Structures are given as structure tokens and as C-alpha cells.
């Protein structure tokens, strides 16, 4: 059987044109997808049943037992942390927020170690963005700043930018100018019309220099800014000012390097300055399939996009204090529920180590590094493979993920709902 128009749940592109061939309850072929999509659908090895850590190893337990014990762990905790959420659908994320509110927990999602700083910048100066469809059909200048879509979002360039035929850009390869700004000469840099190689930690200075040039103050710019020649900066500014429609996409090269959210703020302010000359937009390249959805769901339910602390009975938000890495590094939480993510692999060691010191439960389809740090691992469906649900693409467009096959696992939203019911004295959500 071939299922058409399948959405790949792996990265924030949420490509919606995949064709998946199933045979005997297994996915055997993926068409139109990138290497990441193929691995996501075909090499999908799951944990077979819930497991609990014992003194010497692991034992299989029933779903009912695992759910009851998880609820007890959360009920007994003074400062529980609920973390993850970016690789599942909005339906599960919303139950997570209800649990957090019910038990006074901190709930945080993976944007905290991804585009959290971008959100902080957007909260300061706004977000002049647009949908990817607008970029595809209109943009004649594309800037990839501190990101490497060939490796992280392999079809971004073919679906929306460099190689995508657009309504007003019929000959994309000839008509679109692609500028890449990075500290490394990546594969993406290799196909750029202009590659701007910035010294480590120099993004803020280069963005400031471009802003100055765009505002007609090029005389104040020295011969070199963070390793970039003034001539190149002037050339880039001219390309941008002469664009019919320009689009900046930025990655973790801005959010994780020195300056963090201030880098992103400066990039947004450059976009603002360019809008005095032409139309320019800016958007983050979001990593996980539904990380944008976790920000949306958290925001419409609590008012805040990540790092939400319900300890006071109301939603409180203070990144740097209520963010997962900080709470773990301070050894503050006394229980953790991890959903659809792997902080064991993706958090600095000191933060990950605290997960092993407290009762940690993970709900995730796959065995990952966090499994080893947990007391209980409950396997579930993978959104977009054997569960349907809503996910938000990197440009904020909600897309319905399809259920392609049935593998006999319970949906994580269903598991979370049962945990909520336990916590709520058996009363329904």
C-alpha cells in the first residue's frame, strides 16, 4: 500500500509530499524524503514495552503499573520538571501543560537549548516574518546566517529557496542570490553566491556593521569587522537593498554563540533597517518537527512559549531561572518527566547527571541516552508515523501529521491523560 502526501515529522520543514510504501504492517520505502526522513520512517526501532530500573538491571512492567508509578513520582515531588515535547503532537503537549498546572511543575520544551534565545529577541523587538510559501514565490535574495540547511534541513533549499521555482522567481537558480554567513565553510557555504566567513563570536559586530552601512554610515566601519572585509560588507548591503524581496534564515550559530539572544535581536533590527529600502523578512530555522508547536501550545495555554513555572499556582516565566538546564544544574528539581526528547544526550553533563539522581520517567518511542538515566521508560507512538496529530511548521503553519501504520503502541497523549487522571484523583481532564 502506498500512502501519499505524508508529512515527515523529523525537522521543522515538515515536508508534506512524501510517499510511503507499507507492506505487512511495516514501512518499506520512502519517496521524496531526504536521508533524515528515510531514517525516521524505515529505521524505526522501538522499545517493546515499558521498563523499570532495578538494583541490577531493567524489568518489563505493564503500562498500568508504569503510569501509576509515574503519577506517584510526580505527586510526591516538591519541584517536578516536565521537559521535552518537541517531537510529539500538540495534543500531547497540551495534556503536558495541564499536568504542569495541576501539580505546580516547571514545564519547558527543547527550544530552551535551540531557538529559546530567538524567542527572547522576538519578545524584545518583534518578528518580521512570513510563511515559507511567500519566500518560495517571491524572495530573490536569501541569507542563511549561522545555519547549515544542507545538513540540518536538507530539503529547505529545494522546496523553498535556492532551487525552488517560485511564482515570481521562475528561474530560481539564476534569479535568487544566496548569501551564507558562518564561521565554518560548510557545504551550504559551498553553493552560496557570497560566503561571509565570520570570526568566532563576531556575528554581533558584523550585524551591527551591516546595519550601519544600510543606514548610510559606512564611513564609521573599519577595514575589517570580525574577519570580514569592509568591501564585502558593503557589497552584501547593496545586494540586500536592491532585493525585490529578501529573506534571512538563521540558526543556532546566532542563538548559541557569544551574545545569544542579542545576536538575534541585532539580526531582526538589520531586517528592520532593510525594510526602509525594500521588503525583508527574517525567520529561525526550527530544528525538531514540532518544536514550534510546543511554543504555540505553551503560549496559548499559559501565555509563555517555554520555561513556564507553575510553582506559584500561576504561570511564571524567567529564562535563566525557570529554564530546564538551569533548574537541573542547580539540582533544584526532585522529579522529572521527559517526553519526546533526549536531554541525556543534549544537555551539558552536569545538567544531565541530575536526572540520574532523581526519579526520572521518560515517555518516548525510542531507547535513547535518557533511558539510561531514568527510573521508568514508557514507549509510545511516534507522531506522524503511527499517530496522527497537529504539528507546526517552522513558519508557524499548523499541519496535520498522518498516521501511516499501526504498531500497537498507545499514543503519548493517551498515556499523559491517564497520568493526569491519576493526579486528579481519578477525575477526567
Amino acid at each position, binding site marked *: 500500500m502506498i500512502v501519499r502526501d505524508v508529512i515527515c515529522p523529523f525537522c521543522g520543514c515538515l515536508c508534506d509530499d512524501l510517499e510511503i510504501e507499507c507492506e505487512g504492517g511495516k514501512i518499506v520505502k520512502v519517496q521524496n524524503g531526504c536521508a533524515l526522513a528515510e531514517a*525516521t520512517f524505515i529505521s524505526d526501532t522501538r522499545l517493546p514495552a515499558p521498563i523499570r530500573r532495578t538494583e541490577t538491571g531493567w524489568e518489563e512492567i505493564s503500562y498500568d503499573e508504569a503510569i501509576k508509578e509515574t503519577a506517584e513520582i510526580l505527586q510526591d515531588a516538591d519541584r517536578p520538571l516536565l521537559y521535552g515535547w518537541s517531537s510529539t503532537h500538540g495534543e500531547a503537549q497540551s495534556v503536558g501543560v495541564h499536568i504542569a498546572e495541576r501539580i505546580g511543575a516547571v514545564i519547558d520544551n527543547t527550544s530552551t*537549548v535551540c531557538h529559546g534565545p530567538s524567542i527572547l529577541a522576538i519578545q524584545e523587538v518583534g518578528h518580521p516574518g512570513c510563511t515559507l510559501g511567500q519566500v518560495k514565490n517571491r524572495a530573490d535574495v536569501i541569507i542563511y546566517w549561522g545555519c547549515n540547511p544542507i545538513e540540518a534541513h536538507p530539503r529547505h533549499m529545494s522546496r523553498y529557496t535556492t532551487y525552488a521555482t517560485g511564482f515570481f522567481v521562475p528561474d530560481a537558480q539564476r534569479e535568487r542570490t544566496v548569501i551564507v554567513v558562518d564561521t*565554518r565553510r560548510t557545504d551550504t*557555504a559551498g553553493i552560496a553566491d557570497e560566503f561571509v566567513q565570520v570570526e568566532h563570536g563576531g556575528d554581533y559586530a558584523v550585524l551591527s556593521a551591516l546595519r550601519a552601512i544600510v543606514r548610510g554610515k559606512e564611513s564609521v566601519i573599519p577595514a575589517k569587522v570580525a574577519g570580514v572585509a569592509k568591501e564585502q560588507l558593503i557589497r552584501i548591503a547593496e545586494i540586500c537593498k536592491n532585493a525585490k524581496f529578501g529573506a534571512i534564515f538563521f540558526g543556532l550559530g546566532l542563538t548559541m554563540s557569544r551574545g545569544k539572544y542579542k545576536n538575534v535581536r541585532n539580526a531582526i533590527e538589520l531586517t528592520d533597517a532593510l525594510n526602509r529600502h525594500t521588503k525583508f523578512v527574517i525567520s529561525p530555522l526550527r530544528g525538531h518537527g514540532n518544536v514550534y508547536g510546543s511554543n504555540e501550545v505553551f503560549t496559548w495555554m499559559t501565555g509563555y512559549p517555554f520555561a513556564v513555572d507553575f510553582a506559584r499556582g500561576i504561570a511564571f516565566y524567567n529564562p535563566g531561572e525557570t*529554564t530546564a538546564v538551569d533548574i537541573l544544574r542547580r539540582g533544584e528539581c526532585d522529579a522529572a518527566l521527559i517526553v519526546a526528547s533526549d536531554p*541525556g544526550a543534549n544537555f*551539558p*553533563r552536569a545538567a544531565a547527571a541530575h536526572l540520574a539522581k532523581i526519579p526520572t520517567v521518560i515517555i518516548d518511542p*525510542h531507547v535513547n541516552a535518557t533511558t539510561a538515566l531514568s527510573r521508568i521508560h514508557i514507549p509510545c507512538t511516534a507522531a506522524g508515523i503511527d499517530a496522527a496529530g497537529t504539528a507546526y511548521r517552522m513558519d508557524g503553519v499548523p499541519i496535520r501529521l498522518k498516521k501511516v501504520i499501526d504498531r500497537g503502541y498507545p499514543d503519548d497523549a493517551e498515556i499523559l491523560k491517564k497520568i493526569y487522571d491519576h493526579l486528579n484523583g481519578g477525575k477526567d481532564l
Partner: protein
Amino acid sequence: MKCVLNTGRSVPQGAAVEHKGTDAYRSVASACFLNPIDLMMLGIENGERVRVTTPAGHIVLTACPAEGVTRGECFVTIGPYANHIITSETHGTGMPDFKSQQVDVEPTGEPLKSVGELMEEIGGLRYDRA
């Protein structure tokens, strides 16, 4: 040799990300890309081991030459190997220094650890199903 540790994604890392117990993931996540001149300065060849140290600890990685990496930089894909040595300070932002950690790189003969071993070092217990 003093370097700045830069981390990021790659296609092989993404393709193996749900198989962290496998050799394929280990070889992707433990590769340390250095400028070929820096590799020469360290006196090591492609595939030899380096010990990378920060105030948070040290880790053994496999050195690989990469023309695109500037001198004084080392690139490791995001994952448990890089995170083993990244400090957890977030400077009030929630975001650790995943792309600007100062490190010291030196040749070593020590063996690579598996992801399971790294997790056991911090109090975990491997569940060996790749």
C-alpha cells in the same frame, strides 16, 4: 592546543539519532573535526584519538581533518560526547555555550567510550537495545 568547540547538526548524526547505542552513532557523535594544519601541529593523523578538556571535564574523540573548519576551532556534532565537556552555565539565558566553549586538545592513546558508558559515568544504567 587551545581551541573553540563548535557543535552542530549533520545528516549522519540526524539519521542515527534514534540509535544512540549503535557504532554508527558513536562514530558520528565522537568525531572531532579540525583544520588539517591544526591536525599537523598536533602531530596526529586522520582517525587518531584526541583528548579534549574543559573545566567541566574531558572526553576522548576521534580526530578528522576538515578544510572548512578554521584554525583554532574544533567541530563536534551535537550529542552526548560534546555535551560531556560543555559547562552548564547559561549566563541567565537558559542556553549553555554550545558553540563557544574554550577547550584544550591534545593527542591521546586512550580508547573511545560508548554512549552507554558516558551515561553510566553520571549515574545511569545502560539498557542495551540498540
